[in-house]
């Protein structure tokens, strides 16, 4: 029985090792949660370049987009796409604004519980402040020499219809989000890589105004 248990544990480590390279599983209570909370408390705003890669297994093709990501406490997010075309997403509180092809749409997310949950989850993942997560998820934590990886699985079947799993890669030196992968199903995903990140440089709410 003991051998069986050891084998199962070993297998588990092998599977995790294969899935997340050389990363090893950690207990978030042993320092991770505390560091994340401390860094999140220090962060008032974020500005970052991002590269988005959409992968579709059926076409075996990666589709690239680029833009600028902005965050301002408590719940303001702006995704400004510049390539391959101009596209803007602004979240301010419960309101979502999308500007495409010169036309603006404003949606109130407060009236839709599921959209509200997805919004909260994405906001938490993009800023790295996982303490802001709403809804119920299964979270597993890993680390290597330079990064932490948090694997998040939504429990809600409705949310799973959009997102099966999320992987967030955080830099150990300052707990910033380096990479975010939204896994839609076993094969298709959208990955965001954040570079040139600056903190606490946004002074006004101008970029987040929704009219």
């Amino acid at each position: 029985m003991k051998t069986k248990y050891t084998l199962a544990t070993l297998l588990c480590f092998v599977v995790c090792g294969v899935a997340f390279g050389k990363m090893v599983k950690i207990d978030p209570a042993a320092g991770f949660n505390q560091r994340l909370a401390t860094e999140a408390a220090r962060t008032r705003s974020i500005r970052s370049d991002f590269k988005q890669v959409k992968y579709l297994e059926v076409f075996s093709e990666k589709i690239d987009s680029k833009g600028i990501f902005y965050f301002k406490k408590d719940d303001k997010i702006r995704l400004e796409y510049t390539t391959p075309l101009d596209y803007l997403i602004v979240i301010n509180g419960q309101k979502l604004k999308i500007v495409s092809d010169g036309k603006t749409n404003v949606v109130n997310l407060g009236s839709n519980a599921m959209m509200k949950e997805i919004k909260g989850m994405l906001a938490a993942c993009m800023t790295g402040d996982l303490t802001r997560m709403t809804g119920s998820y299964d979270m597993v934590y890993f680390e290597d020499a330079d990064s932490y990886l948090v694997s998040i699985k939504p429990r809600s079947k409705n949310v799973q219809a959009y997102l099966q799993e999320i992987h967030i890669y955080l830099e150990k030196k300052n707990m910033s989000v380096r990479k975010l992968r939204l896994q839609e199903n076993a094969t298709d995903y959208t990955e965001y890589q954040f570079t040139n990140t600056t903190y606490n440089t946004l002074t006004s709410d101008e970029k987040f105004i929704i009219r």
Partner: protein
Amino acid sequence: MKSLLSVSLLLILLLCSSCCPTKGYRKCGEAKLISSPLPAMLGQSAGLEKFNMKIDFMKKHFSGMLIVKQMREKEYRVVFTSHFGLSIFDFTFTDRDFTVNHCLEALNKEKIITIFKNDFRLLFLLNLTPETEATRYCGKDGEGKHLFRIWTSGVEGYYFEEGDPVRLSRILAGKGFGKTEIVCVRTEQAMRESIVVRHPRIGLRIELENM
């Protein structure tokens, strides 16, 4: 009274002539429509095609990326994703079959799927069978202008071709709520070609712009 009658008759004549698709054409034979000489409006490329797909409905505007690939002869796979990356629908279709591989629950309704099914078949396969027979009309004021008038499942359809090289420029198909107009538009400003699909009875407009 006599003048009122004349005005009414003139008005009726004017209305009839302006709404008749064959205006400006003369009958010049019968034709059996197979894939040649009528190439489809889209899907002629062997590789992956990407479009900025803009949807206007009920005063709301939405856009995303439509990714298309011809999988084998007369079989296409179309995936529509938001610019943010999440997949909205994924269909596979031929002239006989239509498979919904994935579709967000909010859109996965029979009427909506039927609209997409008919539109994609018209755009990529012209919704013609090898047996489809047509009456051929020639343009009165220009060479290379042709119109094919067809009947498919009891519904009349008009396929216009023109230009140098000659290509399909406009399709009128369906009736009632299924009435559809597809037009090839070249915007001088953007120097890009786009395809506009209009469903006048339900106020739906879809535009596909090459990316």
